[in-house]
């Protein structure tokens, strides 16, 4: 039972990180129909931002703040420099643009810093484990669940209470009419990228904390998982991205914990088979985007 509780906390913590990343992809996709594969590099930039601040011997909270702010800045820069010029292009063109952005940033870090990991050592209390009743859990896992909850509540508040947030929801339904209301397309899209960057930045901090290092390719695996989560949840649906993230996290963690040792090498194959099975049963994802979109 203790092990089960422990693993459930791990599942929630990993699923929460996937959910944040998936939300970042979904917010942008729902508005501009771009699957941003450079989303992983937003994480990488966060990681190196944290690393740089810690090199200067500044406190850890400064490092985290700088990491998240650099995520927002890089996401908005991607939009301004690369994706804005491609606005209205077809999905394939946008996808290829995002691969290009991703590659450029990876190579910049490989050549500018190092292709090998650099250490991001966070204080012990962040990586320690604590006892909750009889159960030993990682501080990072517990914190990450709390942070994910705060981030989700915050995003919900932005989307339902601020004018730009409401405009973002409207834009995912009918962008042309949002412009007819006099609302700037650039502002709505830039805000979507900022929100997406903030989510990726928070996810990156939670990802880096227990691992203690960053490398130029660190974003590739989590963003791929996040992409799977958005597809499982229903591409373009924000609720779906969250659900998809938690489902994927749970599947991965429980398989790792409870598969017989002989089957462990097949963990990823089994978890992806479960994903395939979900998509066979629900081809539009668990919580598909409800509104029909105009061309």
């Amino acid at each position: 039972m203790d092990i089960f509780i422990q693993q459930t906390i791990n599942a929630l913590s990993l699923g929460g990180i996937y959910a944040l990343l998936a939300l970042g992809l979904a917010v942008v996709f729902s508005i501009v129909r771009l699957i941003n594969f450079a989303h992983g590099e937003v994480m990488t930039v966060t990681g190196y931002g944290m690393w740089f601040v810690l090199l200067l011997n500044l406190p850890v909270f400064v490092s985290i703040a700088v990491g998240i702010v650099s995520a927002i800045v890089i996401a908005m820069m991607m939009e301004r420099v690369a994706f804005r010029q491609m606005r209205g292009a077809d999905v394939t063109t946008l996808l290829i643009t995002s691969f290009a952005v991703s590659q450029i940033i990876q190579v910049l870090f490989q050549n500018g810093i190092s292709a090998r990991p650099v250490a991001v050592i966070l204080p012990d209390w962040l990586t320690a484990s604590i006892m909750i009743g009889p159960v030993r859990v990682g501080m990072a896992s517990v914190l990450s669940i709390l942070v994910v909850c705060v981030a989700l509540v915050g995003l919900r508040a932005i989307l339902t209470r601020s004018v730009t947030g409401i405009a973002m929801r409207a834009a995912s339904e009918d962008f042309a009419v949002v412009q007819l209301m006099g609302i700037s397309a650039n502002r709505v899209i830039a805000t979507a990228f900022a929100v997406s960057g903030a989510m990726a930045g928070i996810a990156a901090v939670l990802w880096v904390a227990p691992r203690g290092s960053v490398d130029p390719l660190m974003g590739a695996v989590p963003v791929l998982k996040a992409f799977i989560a958005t597809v499982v949840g229903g591409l373009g649906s924000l609720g779906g991205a969250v659900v998809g993230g938690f489902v994927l996290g749970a599947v991965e963690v429980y398989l790792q914990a409870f598969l017989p040792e002989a089957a462990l090498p097949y963990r990823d194959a089994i978890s992806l088979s479960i994903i395939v099975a979900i998509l066979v049963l629900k081809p539009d994802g668990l919580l598909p985007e409800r509104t029909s979109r105009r061309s």
Partner: protein
Amino acid sequence: MLEVASLMVRYGAIEAVRGLDLDVAAGEIHAILGANGAGKSSTLVGISGLVPSQGKIEFEGTDISGLPPETIARMGIGLIPEGRRIFASLTVAENLLLGGAEHASPVERKKRADEMRERFPILQERSTQKAGLLSGGEQQMLAIARALMARPRLLLMDEPSLGLAPQMVETVFDLIVELKSEGLTILLVEQNVPMSLDIADHALVLAQGRASYRGTAAEVATSDVVQGAYLGH
């Protein structure tokens, strides 16, 4: 108020509007009539900046050709698009809010939204419901109220009576007359030719993207082209 010269609107290889001149005077209802595919809607979306167009469009003496749709909207031109296109997944209140988002301070926006709810009581009743749950007629009211939140000086209306029950069609036409009496200038695209000519000051008949007849509503109503094609005489 609105002067359009040699307007061209094309979608890829299709020329929907081919060299249209149009003058709309302040305070009038100007109807655009014509068969399906004659270029009526394309004229409106061209003026609003939603699709690129060529030619010259002047609004209150300012050249607005080529400006982005949000800029044109902020200058005081509202468009109620064909099919209403309310934001179905947003609440009625959120739809109204977005209508005034760029045109008024939060306090002023609330005041205008209250006015709209007073004018259209159904929007009061359904304020917190998803707009997609409204009936067709209610959605049309919401689309009009949403556009009015911006206090436009020129309102472009694309087929406001389309798909509505006869009684609701009456309500919509009464409302258009009411808006005119409040000083709003209206450019109206409609399939309901008799009712449109009844309330319009001037009318323009489009055929294949060009003006085939224009004049006062009375002249157009008695012209051969309208008598033959639309009124069945």
